[in-house]
């Protein structure tokens, strides 16, 4: 890691959360940056990836020409099978989710609050939204990990006292990775679990919209 590095890039954010995965976990990865958790080398820990479209256990995305057009993950990517992969229909896939069998779900978000609420399905002023499986997963997984940039493109904090956007679920977030570090909701703010390289506590606190504990 370079001495001049400041913060984590997207893969490093995903890596940091993936390192929390324990042996034997059933893991659901959301579309986008969360998918990058599957690139992380977990050593001898084995996790199984669950995809909401009824795919339990899948491997890497296949290159053009090698893909099977009957096999996609939640993002519609043509992934590969593992020896223990199995497919089920949607009601069974969400039975797995709703009955609490998912050890962790990793999702992107627009904002996350210190009380564990988060918002990721509708932006301000938009008619309609994109929920997909996010509300089922957020309400029912044993743990909810969130990956998001620490501030918006305009510099506004995404770690906030209360969500301004419509929430996906309330009081469920366990752990948050941003480009500035790893944070845990405390109920009234966030606690720093780890700062990304080159980030100071004061710098991160200034970019956080709610109380931050060291």
């Amino acid at each position, binding site marked *: 890691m370079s001495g001049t590095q400041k913060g984590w890039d997207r893969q490093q954010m995903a890596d940091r959360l993936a390192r929390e995965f324990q042996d034997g976990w059933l893991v659901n990865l959301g*579309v986008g940056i969360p998918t990058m958790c599957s690139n992380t080398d977990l050593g001898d820990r084995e996790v199984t990836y669950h*995809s*909401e*479209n*009824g*795919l339990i256990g899948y491997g890497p995305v296949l290159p*053009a020409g090698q*893909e*099977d*057009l*009957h*096999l*996609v993950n939640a993002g*519609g990517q*043509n992934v590969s*099978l593992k020896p223990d992969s199995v*497919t*089920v*229909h*949607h*009601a069974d*896939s*969400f039975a797995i*989710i*709703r009955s609490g069998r998912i050890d962790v779900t990793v999702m992107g978000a627009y904002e996350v609050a210190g009380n564990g609420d988060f918002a*990721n*399905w*509708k*932006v301000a002023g*938009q*008619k*309609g*939204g*994109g*929920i*997909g*499986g*996010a*509300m*089922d997963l957020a*309400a*029912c997984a044993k743990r909810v990990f969130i990956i998001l940039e620490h501030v918006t493109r305009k510099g506004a904090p995404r770690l906030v006292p209360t969500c301004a956007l*419509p*929430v*996906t*679920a*309330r009081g469920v977030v366990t752990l948050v990775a941003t480009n500035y570090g790893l944070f845990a909701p405390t109920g009234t703010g966030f606690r720093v679990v780890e700062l990304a390289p080159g980030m100071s506590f004061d710098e991160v606190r200034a970019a956080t919209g709610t109380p931050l504990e060291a």
Partner: protein
Amino acid sequence: MRSKTFGGFAEAVADIPDGSVIGIGGFAAPGTPYNLLQALLAQGAKNLVCVANTTGGAHQPRMPDIAMLVENGQVRKVIASFTASTRPTDVIPFTKYYEAGEVEAELVPQGTMAERLRAAGAGIPAFYTPTAVGTELAEGRETRVFNGREMLLEYAIPLDYAFIRAHRADASGNLQFRLTQRNFCPLMAMAAKTCIVEVEEDILPVGSMDPDNVHTAGIFVQRLVKIPAAPDGIWPVRRQERAK
């Protein structure tokens, strides 16, 4: 037994009346009944309610989808788990018509939609779920506490018709799906009065499928159409991101 096999897609959808509630299976390409959607576009039934995971059109090449039915003036309402893209910068084809007020939409969490279909197919009128409690979707709706946890009441979605795609079928309508093609398809089939299936392989004679390896029993299936080879039939191709 009267044959369930139809000679073509136009014939299989010919009697669908205006105002029908139609469930459309599929998640991304697998299981999506492109040929039946194309036939419905030509058939022209109006005031339809379409139930599906998405409205389509998010990728290239564009395949027949619900947004095309909307564009064609055939749809009154859509029930889906996506009525907009999750990326604010990406506008799906449906958005234009939805924002213009030309079509209604009901946004439903994906697992809730699956279970509402399953319930309809299983003779269950409603059920409680923890999903969406405390969100905008639950505002003004009935909840009840079970085992100390608040749950939201959800109603079954009965369908007049289901459109689905399967890999293999026999003439009595027993179906097998391949890999992630299954998704919503068995649930749509169960929820519908009339389930119409586009089938990838040649339709097998009765008795040639192992009863232990049937994913959807023929009792839930009314019409079968074999998909012809391209270009007469529509087959998925590797998708690309839609050009911005």
